[in-house]
Every structure is written in structure tokens, then in C-alpha cells.
């Protein structure tokens, strides 16, 4: 089936099998490997992308269903300069192996769009569909809060 998906602002057309998962479409068809795969059961959020601005798990959506929609991946965060979330994850040691990081940042972005000064618990709640095996989350929470403060400061 022929689909057109706007990825990070650019329309991408492709002819794909209906069963192709959105995550595989992004990773193999488009060669954008910042979106990761960490599980089989929609549990980990390593595959998180923003679908029309809302975070979803791209391993649990068919690419054909994204036809006509906008998808943002980690590759689209940087806009000339690093996004405040990218800066704050670096500055607050919000990542270790980096495997969960794209998902965490994208969920953070959606959260901060609604609320630039979330509490510790609000951040934890927002990222509770995303697993991290390295950091123990402490610094991910800090990073998202710090990015909120930076965005607010601007």
C-alpha cells in the first residue's frame, strides 16, 4: 500500500506491506535509527514517537495507519540548535546507555508543551510508559524539569 507520512516535517512516501510496523518503517525504510525497539509487548517505550504531537509507541501501530499523519522522531528534535531537552539530558546526566533516551525526551517534550514546571511526581507519571534500565530515573526527571525551566526562561 502506498502511504505518505510527514516525518519531522518532510513528507515521505513509500509503498509498504500493511503489516509493517511504524517503528520498522522508520528504522529500516527511512533509515532513521534513533527510534529503538526494546520489547515485544508494548511495555518499554523505546520506540516512542510523537504522532500529531502525542507520544505513542510506534511498535504498536501499523505504518499504513500513519498515512496522512505527522510523526516526530528524536532526529527531529534539533532545530539548528539542540532542543532544550537534549541540552538538559546532557547537563543532568539524564542518560547512560542512551537506548531509552529518545523516547524519554519525546515524552518530555509532549509534557512540557502542556506544563513547563512539572513536579517530580508529574514527570514520573508522564514517563511511566517508558522503561529505563540504567539511570534509576532520578536524573531523567531532573533533566525534564530543567528543560522546562529553560523553556520557560526563554
Amino acid at each position: 500500500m502506498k502511504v505518505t507520512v510527514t516525518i519531522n516535517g518532510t513528507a515521505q512516501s513509500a509503498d509498504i506491506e500493511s503489516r509493517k510496523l511504524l517503528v520498522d518503517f522508520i528504522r529500516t525504510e527511512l533509515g532513521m535509527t534513533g527510534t529503538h525497539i526494546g520489547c515485544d509487548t508494548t511495555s518499554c517505550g523505546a520506540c516512542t514517537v510523537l504522532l500529531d504531537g502525542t507520544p505513542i509507541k510506534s511498535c504498536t501501530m501499523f505504518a499504513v495507519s500513519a498515512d496522512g499523519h505527522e510523526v516526530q522522531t528524536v532526529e527531529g528534535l534539533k532545530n539548528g540548535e539542540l532542543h532544550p531537552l537534549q541540552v538538559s539530558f546532557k547537563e543532568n546526566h539524564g542518560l547512560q546507555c542512551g537506548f531509552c533516551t529518545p523516547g524519554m525526551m519525546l515524552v518530555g517534550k509532549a509534557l512540557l508543551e502542556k506544563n513547563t514546571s512539572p513536579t517530580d511526581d508529574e514527570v514520573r507519571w508522564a514517563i511511566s510508559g517508558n522503561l529505563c534500565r540504567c539511570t534509576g530515573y532520578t536524573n531523567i526527571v531532573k533533566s525534564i524539569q530543567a528543560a522546562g525551566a529553560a523553556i520557560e526562561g526563554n
Partner: protein
Amino acid sequence: MYPPAFEYWSPKSLDEALSKLQELGHDGRVLAGGQSLIPMMKLRLAAPANLVDINNLTDLAYVRADNGHLAIGALARHADVVDNDHVKTISPTMASAAPWVADPLVRNRGTVAGSIAHCDPEGDWNSVMLAVGASVVATSTSGQRVIPIGDFVVDFFTNSLAEGEMVTEIQIPRPTGSAGGAYLKLERKIGDYATAAVATFLDLATDGTVSNAGIALTAVASKNLKVTEAEQMLIGQTPSPELFAEAAAVAAAACDPESDVRGPAEYKRAVINAYTKRGLAKALAQAQGGAS
């Protein structure tokens, strides 16, 4: 993990969707949020031949306060009912349950109606709907019927839809008096299904007696279980901790949990007992205008 191949249909209108479902009959399956269906396909536990994707039927993405009831369209996502004013005023039980269904990202995609149609006995929504006396609107090319939730939920992953029919709306009746409700769920972590959960609902008459009551249980029987006997014990009575304890004991006795890695049956019964008491107390406090 890769799903098996299928034929994909993406209707642009409800009529088109219904015709396609009619045409495919037994071989057609609705794809709503995909948050149950796609994981099952990836694990090769489901291999539908045709999927009719209803995600373009954006007209069905509503949560409305209609006359007499709260109406949830087939494309309303779980997230749409979290922190929603209509939901909070009309169905406190639903409002209480919404944040505890799955995880935030799954809630952004999965639908309330899809979850109800799925009839997973560990799913949360059917207990809520049984407690509040909801109805399911089923639509096909030959028209609509309104199915009381008790008749809709048949068993373990089985609903009473006919071939060619799909769920288009869920209706939750407005309480007649001052009402309260709660959904108490024991889960091991965010994203976990319930080990056991209890939906409670109380509607109070002006004299403070219970005019309507709902109690339904999750994950402790082969389907979500409405405990009519316990509800009946409450109706017409003045609520009290003793009365709640009696109802809770009935609920605990009514369920039939399995012993598994989440605990032995008697543990799950004890949780049902405790949560029914707590849930009714919360519902009461809310109905009486106190803190929930």
C-alpha cells in the same frame, strides 16, 4: 516481533466501514487503537485476515454529555477520558479508573470502546461499565441496537456483537441523585493489568439512602463480574461501614479467582474484600460531597 500478514482497509466514513465489515463478515476485524490487537498479532496469538481500521472515523472521537447520559464515541482514546470534566461530573467511577488503565502512552492510542469490545477479564473498563450500568451501541448496515453491558460481556474475550456489527458508542447513565464512585486497582506496576480490582458506584436519594449501587470486579473470574447480590444489599439502605463490610464479604465470596504468580485465590479474595469496603467508603464520601 513481527505480525503476520493481513489485508488492510481504511474506510473514510462510518458507512464505508460498516459496508466493509458487512462484506467481510467473519473474516473482518475492527482495528481501533490496536493496543490489544497488535501485541497479540506480534506474539502470533492472533492472525486476522482483514483489518478494518476505524482511526479515520474522527467523528467518533467524542466524549459528550448527552441528554440523560455520558456518550463515549468509538474513537475516544483512554486519554480522552482522563481528567475530562464530563466524565468527572457524570461518572466518578470512570474518572477514578481512567488514569489506571495501562500506561500514559498506551492511553494515548487505545480506545475505551475497543477495550470494552475486547472483553479481557483483566481489563478495567468492563468492570466500571458493569458497576455504572452502561450500554453499548452496536451498529451495522442494518441499523443500531443498544445492548446493556451485562448482555454485551459474554465471557473471556467474547462479546455479543453479531457479524458485521461494531461498537459505535458507549452510554453511561447520569446518576439521579448525588453520586460517587471509585475504581481501586491492585497492580504490580504501571502498565500492569489488575491482580484484582473493584469498581464501586453509589447514587444517593435525598434522604441519604442508597437509590442505586454498583459493584463489579476485575481479574477474579472468567469475565468482569457484576456482584448483583451485594448491590441489592445496599439499595434502599442507609450506608454504614457495617453494611459495606457485609457487601464486601458477599463480593469476596462471589468471585472465583485463580491462584497464580500474582497470589493465591484467598489473597485475591481478601483484596476484593478490602477494596470493596474502601471503594464504597470513597464513593459514599464523594456522594456526600466530602473528599473522595
